[in-house]
């Protein structure tokens, strides 16, 4: 059983306080920027928590043994999913009520012929991009995700009692996971089109869903790895051997490279073809001086740091190397999340500033609070799991 130490508890509370102050200040100061800040920070943590569900589902479907020892960590991370999903739905409803102007296509009159701001291209997308369908879709995604997360958590606890292959909990886990993965394959792509790509309404990329998924994977694995290292350092998870950490390090490395691959594939084709309606997306990010540095900087550190720091086998088994690389990756992807939203909503007056950071810290504090709390609710080590022994003696 994990027990929250006083300093951890205090840290999460301080971070939540910083977040609350930043949020209030941001909304009083510049509510347009504040909504962008809210949605991108929320997106970042939503990615981490939904990826934890995907991770557990993947282990079930693949009948993977290596990760059994650390199974409780993603299970704890996924308890943050309902909070981020609730904020996301709140943002969507607020957008429909015109409290915020994140989604350009929701503007009144933009799809009615004859209105001064009528946009023929956006009007052509009305069948898909209309507020009611948008809300219904969003609710379907999050409800199924949260339901699957809850089921997987329950099944895991049930598996502690039953154990063994072919038992009720084991088969149920595979069934739920398989359905979740099929649903997630479609819904993760659609959610990224809806919530992120539709901000730049005229622009589209067929690669976008995969690009977002690769980002979720990179930050998701990094977070799981950091929690594992933290718990091990605190004296928990004693079965966690170097090989499992090494494997997690490989995943972090691999998905950083996958992210770069997706980023570059999307960038290179658009850059090369140079078609006006496509390049607008990158023009906003490269030509505007307030995003140019962040754009190149985040792309560079998200690739170069994990590649150089984590390339060798010894580095993936060295806690300090892993922590440095992980923290840099999280910062890099946090900046990149900002760049997914801000240029489309704030155009030339967006600045990644202290309020964005403050809100991010607030989310981090809440994340710590929820995840550490849920770590205390169940034993950190799985019992009677059929692959537990394999995981304990993993050797790579």
């Amino acid at each position, binding site marked *: 059983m994990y027990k929250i130490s006083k300093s951890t508890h205090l840290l999460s509370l301080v971070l939540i306080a910083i977040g609350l102050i930043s949020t209030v200040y941001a909304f009083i100061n510049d509510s347009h920027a504040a909504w962008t800040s809210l949605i991108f920070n929320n997106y970042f943590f939503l990615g981490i928590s939904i990826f934890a569900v995907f991770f557990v589902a993947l282990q079930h479907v693949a009948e993977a043994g290596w990760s059994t020892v650390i199974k409780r960590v993603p299970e704890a991370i996924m308890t943050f999913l309902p909070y981020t999903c609730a904020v996301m739905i709140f943002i969507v409803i607020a957008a429909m009520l015109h409290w915020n102007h994140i989604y350009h296509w929701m503007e009144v009159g933009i799809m009615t012929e004859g209105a001064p701001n009528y946009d023929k291209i956006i009007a052509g997308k009305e069948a898909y991009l209309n507020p009611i369908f948008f809300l219904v879709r969003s609710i379907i995604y999050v409800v199924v995700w949260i339901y699957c997360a809850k089921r997987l958590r329950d099944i895991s606890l049930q598996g502690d009692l039953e154990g063994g292959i072919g038992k009720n909990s084991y088969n149920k886990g595979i069934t739920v996971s398989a359905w979740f993965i099929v649903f997630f394959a479609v819904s993760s792509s659609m959610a990224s089109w809806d919530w992120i790509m539709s901000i730049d309404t005229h622009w589209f990329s067929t690669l976008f869903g995969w690009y977002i998924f690769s980002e979720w994977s990179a930050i998701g694995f990094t977070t799981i790895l950091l929690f594992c290292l933290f718990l091990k350092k605190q004296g928990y998870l004693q079965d966690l051997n170097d090989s499992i950490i090494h494997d997690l390090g490989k995943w972090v490395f691999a998905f950083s490279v996958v992210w770069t691959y997706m980023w*570059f594939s999307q*960038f*290179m084709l658009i*850059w*090369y*073809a*140079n078609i006006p309606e496509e390049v607008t997306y990158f023009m906003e990010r490269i030509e505007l001086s307030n995003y140019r540095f962040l754009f190149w900087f985040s792309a560079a550190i998200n690739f170069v740091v994990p590649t150089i720091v984590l*390339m*060798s*086998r010894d580095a993936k088994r060295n806690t300090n190397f892993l922590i440095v690389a992980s923290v840099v990756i999280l910062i890099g992807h946090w900046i990149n999340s900002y760049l997914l939203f801000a240029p489309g909503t704030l155009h030339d007056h967006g600045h990644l500033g202290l309020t964005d950071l403050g809100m991010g810290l607030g989310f981090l504090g809440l994340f710590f609070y929820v995840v550490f709390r849920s770590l205390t609710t169940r034993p950190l080590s799985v019992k009677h799991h059929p692959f537990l022994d394999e995981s304990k003696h993993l*050797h*790579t």
Partner: protein
Amino acid sequence: MSKKVIHAIFDDEEILLQSVKEIRSKKYDIEEVYSPFPVHGLDHALGLKETRMAITAFIYGCIGLSFGGLLIYYIMISGVGKSWPMNIGGKPNFTFYQNVPSFVPIMFECTVLFAGHLMSLTYFYRNKLYPGASTKSPDPRTTDDKFLMELIVEDSDKEITKILKSTGASEINEKNIEDE
């Protein structure tokens, strides 16, 4: 003192692994182990030196990257490209750095190609595997389902046979080798 070669046959890789650990803890040197497939942890148990293949891979990758860069620089910019400038998508074709995104795939592929092929060749060279090489395995059953441990010990040593038997060797063959 004459020496003898012992070939101990094992049926299972777990038993082999335990036996290797046991024998090494008794200060015997294991000459070689022949196995039909890679056994996890065997290299560690045998106390083999860490492979330097990763370092060679990195070097070969760097060579490939440089080669790809030079190749595309010659083709598109400096050599052929200067004589026949190619206008592709209206991209500037006089400078390397302005064109770098379109050159990345070529440089990436060259990196992978060089690293992959040169690593294979290095592996064959280090293991002396050339066309027509004869097998070094003393027993053809090691290509099927048996594991063979090879030791060279003093002729008078009777202890080792006992240890091998007790750790689960299914068959032990001894052969004397002449003193040189």
